[in-house]
C-alpha cells in the first residue's frame, strides 16, 4: 500500500496550515514526517487518516482515491500521542475492538488477540485495565490494537513523545524492527530529528505547512536543500556567514584561516566543543575529539584560526533553495 498526496491544502479558519503538500510514500517504507511544532505535520497525518477534512487536494491509498472516504472505511491504523486507550475495556478488549466491529467470530478474535498480545509482549496483561499499565505498555497496546485490523497503512502521531528517554529508545528500536518484519507502510510524525534519523527510511520535512525537502536521512543531512533543513537536522555553525556542520570546521595555523578567540571550552565526554568568537563578535564552535582537545589544551582567551576542512561538502548558503519533488522516486540534491 503506498500513499499518494496531491496538492493537499488545509485551512483552519483563515490560517493556511498545509500548503499544496504533494508526496508519494513508497510501499513498505517507514516515513518520518518531521518538523517544528505548528508545521502542520500532525494535521497532515490526521487528514491522511480521514480524521480531518482537507480543503483542496487528493489522497490516494494504493491507487484508491480516499479523499471523501470516512476514516472508518480507509483501513488504516492510527496511534495517538496519548495512546487513547479505551479506559473502560481491558487490554484484550481494547485490542479486540476493531475485530468485534468486523463481526469476527469470537474464537477467532480470541486467537488473533492472543497472537497480537504475544507480539507486543503484553500477554500477561490481557485482563488488566489500561490504567494499570505503564506508558510504554500502553503504547504497545495501542499498536496492537491498531494492527489488529490488519491495516494497509500505519499512522503514528508522536508515539514516543510522552515516554522517558530509556523507554523511548527501546520502543523506537522495537517499532522499527516490527515495521520491517510486517512490511507495513508507516508514517511517523515527530519533532525529534534524532528519532527520525534513527528509524526512518525517508524523511519529509515540513515547515509552516510546506514540504521543505524529502529524502533519506543521509541525503538530507549531508545535502540539505536549505538553511532550515540544515538547521533542523543537526547542529550548525557559521564561518564567514556560511553555515557548516561543526565537524567541517577545523583549527589551523594562524595565517591559513579566520582569526578568532576562544570564549568557552565545553567537554561533553566523547567530544569537546570549543566556542570561539571572531573580531565581529559572531560566535561559532568547533568540534574536537577528546584526544585532539587534550593535545591542543586550549584555554579561554587564547587566539586561534579557523578554516573549512578540506573536502567538506559545501552546502547551499542563504540562496533560494531548490526542493525536488519527483513522484515515485526518492529525491536527491546534487
Amino acid at each position: 500500500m503506498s500513499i499518494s498526496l496531491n496538492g493537499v491544502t488545509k485551512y483552519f479558519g483563515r490560517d493556511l496550515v498545509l500548503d499544496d503538500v504533494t508526496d508519494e510514500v513508497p510501499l513498505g517504507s517507514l516515513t518520518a514526517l518531521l518538523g517544528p511544532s505548528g508545521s502542520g505535520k500532525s494535521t497532515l497525518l490526521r487528514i491522511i487518516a480521514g480524521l480531518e477534512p482537507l480543503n483542496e487536494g487528493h489522497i490516494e491509498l494504493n491507487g484508491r482515491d480516499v479523499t471523501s472516504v470516512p476514516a472508518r472505511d480507509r483501513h488504516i491504523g492510527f496511534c495517538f500521542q496519548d495512546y487513547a486507550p479505551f479506559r473502560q475495556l481491558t487490554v484484550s478488549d481494547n485490542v479486540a475492538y476493531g475485530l468485534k466491529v468486523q463481526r469476527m467470530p469470537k474464537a477467532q478474535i480470541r486467537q488473533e488477540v492472543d497472537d497480537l498480545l504475544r507480539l507486543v509482549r503484553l500477554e500477561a496483561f490481557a485482563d488488566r485495565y489500561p490504567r494499570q499499565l505503564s506508558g510504554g505498555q500502553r503504547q504497545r497496546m495501542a499498536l496492537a490494537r491498531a494492527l489488529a485490523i490488519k491495516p494497509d497503512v500505519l499512522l503514528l502521531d508522536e508515539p514516543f513523545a510522552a515516554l522517558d528517554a530509556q523507554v523511548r529508545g527501546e520502543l523506537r528500536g522495537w517499532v522499527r524492527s516490527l515495521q520491517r518484519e510486517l512490511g507495513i507502510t508507516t508514517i511517523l510524525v515527530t519533532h525529534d530529528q534524532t528519532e527520525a534519523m534513527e528509524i526512518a527510511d525517508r524523511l519529509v520535512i515540513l515547515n509552516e505547512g510546506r514540504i521543505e525537502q524529502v529524502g533519506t536521512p543521509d541525503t538530507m543531512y549531508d545535502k540539505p536543500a536549505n538553511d532550515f533543513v540544515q538547521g533542523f537536522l543537526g547542529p550548525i555553525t557559521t564561518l564567514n556567514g556560511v553555515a557548516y556542520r561543526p565537524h567541517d570546521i577545523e583549527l589551523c595555523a594562524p595565517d591559513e584561516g579566520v582569526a578568532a578567540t576562544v570564549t568557552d571550552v565545553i567537554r561533553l565526554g566523547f567530544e569537546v566543543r570549543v566556542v570561539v568568537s571572531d573580531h565581529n563578535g559572531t560566535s561559532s564552535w568547533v568540534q574536537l575529539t577528546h584526544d585532539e582537545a587534550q593535545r591542543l589544551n586550549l584555554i579561554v582567551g587564547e587566539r586561534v584560526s579557523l578554516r573549512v576542512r578540506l573536502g567538506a561538502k559545501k552546502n547551499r548558503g542563504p540562496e533560494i533553495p531548490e526542493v525536488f519533488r519527483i513522484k515515485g522516486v526518492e529525491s536527491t540534491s546534487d
Partner: protein
Amino acid sequence: MLAAPLKETPIAQAKQPPSTGRQLRRVNRRGRRGAAKGLAVTYLSLLVLIPLAALVTNAFNHGLGSFWRAVTQTESIDALRLTLVCAFIASAINAVAGLATAWVLVRDRFVGQGILNAIIDLPFALPTVVAGVIFYTLYGPLSPFHVNITGTWIGITVAIMFVTLPFTVRSVQPVLESLTFNAESAASTLGASPVRVFRTITLPALMPALLTGTGLAFARAIGEYGSVVFISNNLPYRSEVASSYIYSLATSGQTNSAASVAVALLVIALVLLIVFNVTAQRLARNRA
C-alpha cells in the same frame, strides 16, 4: 436527537466538482443538526425562556413606576433586607466552615472520614421541606433543647447554613486535593510558620474556588424557601423572607407585584454571581 460524536465524512470543501452523493451527505448532516437545534430551542423555550420572558413582561406590565413601587414597598424592603442579611451571614460562616471541612477531609486521616465526606452532601440531597420541619421542631416551641429561635433572624440563618454548606465544601475540596505541597514546602524551608504558609500560599490558591462556591451558596440562600418558611413564622415586616413574600403576593392575586419583586430578587442574585465569579476569575488570572 442526540448529536453524533464525530464528523462522519471528511468532505473536501472548496474546489471539488460537486457530486450528488457528497451533496446529499452534506445536506443530511445540516438537516440533522438543524433538527436538533430546533428541538433544543423548543424544549428550552417552553421550559425556561418563555416563562422568564413572561416574568419580566409581567413585572413591567404597568410600567417602570409600578415595578419600582412594588419593589420598594416597606414589606418588600424588609423582606429583601432580612433575606440578604441572613444569607450573607450564613454564607460567610459557611465559607469559613466549608474551607475548614474541606481541609479536614483532604489533609487529615481519621476513622469515619468517609462518613463525613458522604454526609456533607446530605443538605443537598435532602428535601428542603424536610430540613424545614426538622429545624422548626428542633429549635422551635417544642424544642427538646428548650431553644426557641423561630421568627428570628438566627433561626433563618441556621436553616440557610444547613442548606448551603455543601456548596462551599465541594467547590474547595477538589482544588485542595489537586494542590501539591511544593509551594508550601518551599515557604516552610524559607522559615515561614504553618499559619503564615496557609495565609500567604495555600489560601490564595484556594480563594477563587472558595469565592465561586460562596457565590453559589449566597445565590441559593437568597431564594431559599422550604427550609426557611417554617422556622421563620412568616411574620410580615418581621421575619418574612423574600421568597415567602413573593409567594404571598402570588397567591393573593397580586401577580404583577409578585413578578416585580421576583425580578428584583433575580437581579440581585445575578449581580452577586457576577461579582463573585469575576473576582474569582481575576484572582485566578493573577496567580497564573
